[in-house]
């Protein structure tokens, strides 16, 4: 009997690991698709994949986080302003769930800031006051929660990079912020294979552009 229980127990452990395996495999499969698309439709399709995982694994924050991330990227690829807002609404609602599952996570607040940045870009003249401040607030919190996370500075720098010089932005202002981010990227070790680990390539692209001009 004892033996049998042992067998049963080990079996349960194995099936659990199998399940975790299945989760990681599915997550990785979706993550690997991220680089293959640039279109809103493509990002929505990957978001759909993450959403299926999220709804089956209701206690994990990462799938929700990635659904949100995909919809944010979809908003950047979308051309119709009204549709951008619809994507960002969806991104925001999924990130709220992620935040409730994993409180005070630097990556989550980075993404909250990124969504605010994206909202602002839909209609900068009317929205900078509200969403500019909101992005700022979230990035500041993200840095505070994890000083090693390179992504808040990457996004702050990106914002500055695309802001006209007259408004206190431009490549010169962005450079030190982006360099700080690169420094952090060099030291950054993601928590797992499926933990957030994006941004480096774009960052290097921007720095290259700045250095070429400078």
């Amino acid at each position: 009997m004892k033996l049998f229980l042992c067998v049963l127990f080990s079996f349960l452990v194995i099936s659990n690991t199998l399940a975790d395996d299945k989760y990681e495999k599915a997550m990785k499969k979706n993550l690997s698709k991220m680089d293959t698309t640039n279109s809103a439709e493509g990002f929505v399709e990957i978001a759909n994949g993450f959403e299926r995982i999220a709804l089956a694994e209701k206690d994990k924050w990462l799938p929700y986080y990635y659904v949100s991330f995909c919809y944010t990227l979809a908003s950047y690829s979308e051309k119709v302003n009204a549709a951008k807002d619809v994507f960002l609404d969806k991104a925001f609602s999924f990130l709220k769930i992620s935040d409730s599952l994993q409180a005070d996570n630097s990556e989550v607040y980075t993404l909250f800031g990124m969504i605010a940045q994206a909202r602002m870009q839909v209609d900068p003249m009317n929205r900078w006051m509200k969403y500019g401040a909101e992005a700022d607030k979230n990035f500041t919190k993200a840095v505070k929660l994890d000083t090693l996370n390179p992504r808040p500075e990457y996004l702050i720098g990106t914002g500055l990079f695309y802001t006209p010089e007259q408004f206190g932005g431009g490549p010169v202002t962005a450079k030190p912020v982006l360099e700080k981010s690169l420094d952090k990227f060099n030291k950054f070790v993601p928590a797992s294979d499926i933990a957030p680990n994006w941004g480096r390539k774009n960052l290097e692209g921007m720095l290259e552009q700045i250095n070429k001009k400078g």
Partner: protein
Amino acid sequence: MKLLFTLFISLLCSVSILSQTKISGTIKDKSNQPLPGANIFIKDSYDGVSSSVDGTFTFTSEEEGEAILVASFVGYKTFEQKLLLDGKPQTVDIVLEEETTELGAVTVSAGSFEASDEKKAVILRPLDIVTTGADADIYSTLETLPGAQQIGESEGLFVRGGSAAESKTIVDEMIVQKPFYTGVPDVPSRGRFSPFLFKGTIFSTGGYSAQYGQALSSVLILKTQDMPTQTVSSINLMALGFGGSHTQVWDNSSLSAEAGYYNLDPYFQIQKQRVDWVKAPESFEGSMNFRYKTSETGMLKAFTSYSYGDLSLNVENLDQPDLRDFFRMKGGNYFLNTNYREIFDQDWVFFSGYSFSYDFDDMDIAPNRIKLRETLNTGKVTITRNVSSNLFLTGGGEVQNIIYQDVFNELEGKLNEVYLAGFLESDIIITNDIALRLGVRGERSKLLDKINVAPRISLAYRLGTFDQLNFAYGQFYQTPAKDFLMWTRDFDFEKATHYIVNYQYIGTGRTFRIEAYYKDYSQLAKGNVFTHPYFNLPDVEFNNGGKGYAKGIDIFWKDNETFRYGYYWLSYTYLDTKREYLNYPTLAAPPFSTPHTFSAVFKYWLNDITTNVGITYSFATGRPYFNPNNPVFLGDKAKNYHNLSLNFSYITSIFNNFTVVFFSIDNVIGYNNVYGYRYSSDGTKKSPVLAPALRTAFIGMFISLGQTNPF
């Protein structure tokens, strides 16, 4: 043991025997259009797929037995269906129903222009208000919308044949007794509130909700900002004065304070004025704004302000050309508005508010001395219940206590009015395409000792994703002006009935609206009052027999699409109105009305010089004026009105502080507008009513300390 063994075996089986079921089908919307990119999956599993461009999908699931197939797509209601997964291929054809999202949803909107940063499908943004016209005043922006008249010589909104007294301003659900600084004859005064205070504005030109009363023509509903997001200080330097503000933000609360001092004297030295100022307007104002987040969904707001002003001038006396009448006005206003809003159990919204205002004006109109005192206490409670996703009920009540004290030399008049109102309103979404708002409002005035019951109905019918038809009907009541009630209280409420038909298209970049209306006035107060405007006319006894009508067409077009860095709007108003009230001997078109009004507003962002340019052109046909020599009452018409104004907002930074330099000129072309004429008592001499200066210019600089850039 046997049991455990069975359990073990069955557990094993469930893992090892993996049968697969193929599920395929199509996904479309109600009009049979395929929906590409929808998410179709088996609930609580990873199995699923996104639909392809033609709306088809195919996937296999390793689940077994009873399962739920889910289909979801942005903007549509989630679809669920039970399936039995037994290895046999299955075909499912899914039709998704549209969710009532903001864009393309049917909304009750007859007679209203909304500026909001919360809602996506609105006609105007709050910024539109700040950057229109020459003076960044809420009210002068509203004059560029159809339905409102271009009135250059006095303050107030004149909407669809209604006088200024028929339009009311509502801040956070409560009526504001004095939304303007007290005016001087022939000089319009500004609105009391800065456009920056508000996150949303609804300008209703008719047929509005049962939640509001005491306005025969129009209500302007202003919603104040919620919690500010950052601590910031600013300095404002203007040719007319200076001011500063500070906002402090804590975790759950914020406090802003603002103060300003204005003196028009230096400006008047440079810019020649037609008005003979003895003392140019000098004023002080200060305000405080407190926000406290009581919970995730609850908010307490308090706003208080104080203003004081002093001015004097000499006014031409037509009866004695060698004499000029001295006029002095000093006065002030104290205002408090505090309110609390909370959502309970997701479906109950509770609002309560209290507002107090005290207004004092002391006038010397040689040789007369006039003192006006006005105190208003008002409270309002509203409860909204979200009964289902298709039915909202709103009910509530308000009470107002208004005390007027007028002193005219030794004569003193005092009125103490208690006004009570209750309302009930339901918003019903009958189908995805039809929305109905049914409301009723009951009011009681203590002074009149009368009650009224006013029904209101609005209907919206959606024709397509972006366009809809709207209808509205409503009865509106208003207590006659205090000038009548000082003499006798033998009056009933004044009444207007509105009928409105409207077609509107709100696409992603372009908006078109056309609205036709008919307004029937009855029970208007008649009689000679202190302010009666027309002399040489037979006396009229006090009575409630005034009447009139207004009918017309309003057209509005806004285009955000054509210009990459700019947009424009055009509005046209046709108005046919006549009324008999005050001491009018007959039905006549009132002096604040004209048949044709046109406005064009164009805004452009010049990226290279980081400057926003706004151009506003307004045109109106000449308005009627009273000529005692003309046997036809109000039979003369002034010449047509033209105005072109420009404004520039240059955005820069000064010592790393974000700065906006604002410059504007009113009446650039220098067109000499004549609003009407004033006559001497014997009718032999006349003098034109003109703007205080041919052109006006404004320059100011607004510096946000410590904020380097807006992004």
